[in-house]
């Protein structure tokens, strides 16, 4: 039990829109172990970023966590007041965002942005902070930190900016780094370098990483365990290997089949018919039933419970484990 760092139980997130209150994300249960890389994958708008922001305490004003709890290192984050939570942000839990250009302050020098976490959370002297900043910049693979600290973000390339973001996220040696699509805005070669860097940091610092992406290839490459989200629900969760080699949910299967690979050359691309339902659509049965080619009558009526496939692979689908179709 003690190797669990983060545990979300029955988490539900509401979005307030003028007078209506919509429960968008609900029934979320998952846990992240110390030092592991946990992937969350899903289409755009499935609620994965919302989930990440709820853990990091960055939900916008009209979005509220309506029930459940988030246990982090023995503390329920939802019971903390604003000030107590603030002391953990950037120190125990930090975030790396998708778009490094806009996520860095355009008018603040790199040095100040990277060292800010230290300034907020420690009583180090100016000199020690300076030293640590140069140190961390070297760690994330930036060669001339002395020059970089005096640069502004617009003077750097996309990859360098993302390294800066990562440097600032890990400078306090947090227990958990939430990376929200950290490679989506980068080109492929840079993407690969950033993934290596994240893995490297995961190993050297032993911090857990929640890695959010819509890119299955990226997820399968670096994550130990993965959760597949659809329409505000985790529909399948387990060991990355197990999930990718034996996907159980029709949605996961569809996603994996949609990856263009060498042996599918010449064939037309596979896709999942239909689109993610609108947020206001009535929730009943399995949310994926409308798009599922194998949906049966009960799929539309009752919501499937989780079935354990192996001790580290669970799925919420009636069709799971059925063979000979």
């Amino acid at each position, binding site marked *: 039990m003690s190797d669990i760092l983060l545990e979300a139980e029955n988490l539900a997130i509401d979005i307030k829109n003028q007078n209506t209150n919509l429960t968008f994300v609900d029934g979320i249960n998952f846990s992240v172990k110390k030092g592991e890389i946990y992937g969350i994958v899903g289409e755009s708008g499935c609620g994965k970023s919302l989930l990440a922001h709820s853990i*990091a305490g*960055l939900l916008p004003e009209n979005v509220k966590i309506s029930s459940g709890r988030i246990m982090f290192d023995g503390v329920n984050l939802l019971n903390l007041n604003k*000030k107590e939570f*603030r*002391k*953990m*942000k*950037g*120190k125990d839990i*930090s*975030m790396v*965002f998708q*778009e490094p250009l*806009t*996520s*860095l*302050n*355009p*008018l*603040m020098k790199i040095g100040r942005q990277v060292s*800010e*976490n230290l300034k*907020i*959370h420690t009583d180090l002297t100016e000199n020690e902070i300076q030293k640590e900043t140069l140190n961390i910049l070297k760690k994330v693979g930036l060669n001339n930190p002395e020059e970089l600290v005096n640069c*502004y973000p*617009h003077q750097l390339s996309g990859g360098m900016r993302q390294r800066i*973001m990562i440097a*600032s996220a890990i400078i306090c040696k947090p227990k958990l780094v939430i990376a929200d699509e950290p490679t989506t805005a980068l080109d492929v070669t840079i993407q690969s370098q950033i993934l290596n860097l994240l893995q490297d940091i995961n190993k050297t610092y032993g911090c857990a990483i929640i890695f959010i992406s819509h890119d299955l290839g990226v997820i399968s490459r670096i994550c130990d365990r993965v959760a597949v989200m659809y329409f505000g629900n985790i529909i399948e969760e387990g060991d990355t290997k197990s999930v990718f080699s034996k996907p159980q949910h029709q949605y996961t299967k569809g996603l994996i089949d949609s990856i263009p690979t060498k042996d599918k050359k010449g064939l037309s691309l596979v896709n999942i018919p239909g689109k993610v339902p609108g947020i206001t659509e009535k929730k009943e049965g399995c949310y994926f039933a409308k798009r599922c080619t194998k949906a049966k009558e009960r799929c539309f009526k009752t919501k499937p419970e989780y079935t354990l496939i192996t001790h580290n692979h669970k799925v919420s689908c009636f069709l799971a484990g059925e063979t000979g179709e």
Partner: protein
Amino acid sequence: MKYILRRFVTLLLTLFLVSVLTFIAFDIIPGDPVELILGTQASPERITALRTQLGLNESLPVRYFDWLSGLLKFNAGNSIQYSRPVNSLISNSFPVTAWLTFISFSLIVLFSIPLGIFAAKWKNKLIDKIISTVTMFSVSVPNFFLGVIFIWLFGIVFKLFSPGRYVDYHENFIGFLNYLIFPALAIAIPNIGISVKFLRTSLIGQMNADYVRTAYSKGNGDIAVLCRHVFRNALAPLMTLFGMIIVEILSGSIVIEQVFALPGIGRLLISSITFRDLPVIESLAIYIAFIVVFINFAVDIALQLIDPRIKIK
């Protein structure tokens, strides 16, 4: 360097155009300084004599180039109304207006920045609503009315200064500043209102930016996010507004200087226009054009210092 040179050429061109246009405008509008000096009953001989003496019989281009060549020798001619060199008239009025500008602008900066930040921090809360109401009120009240109220309140009721008894800065500098605070306040209050609104809107607009979310993710509180991250990003529109405000006060707050009997640029402008005192008007037009171009230049430099992404071209 090239940039500064180009700015300088623009400045000269602007000054030239302004001076030509002012000359033409005063040639077209009715009114004759000679009649104003001698009165309508004067004999035609005296009028002709004075016209020749003032050089008013020459054609427009000749008069213009006479004046221009004088100006190049730093001699802007004599005022028709006061029979004194224009140079000394302006150099006597300028310090009054300059100090007025300095005091009122300091007040504007001092009050509008914290109020703007408070309003943005507590957006749509009670503090914001109070600030909004007060600023709305301060923008709507005309400054001459404020001036009159101040004269009554601070001058007559509290006797903090003697209204109408302007203290010259040569004689008593402290007294001069003391006198100037009240007109400066009357100028500042409506401008504080506008500046607060500007800053609040600009700050709130920035609050949705991605880097703000990053700042919160590092453990910054609301005030730290606003002051350390958002403020500098929100400053550009305010700088432009500040430039406009300085230009406005420095080119002579005509109404306030009149209400408080301040012998500044604004008052000189009014009296010379009424008197068709062309040499003074010409010089003041040049002065105002210079202020506009110079302040705009200063604002450009300031904007670039705030945001290194802005490149002067």
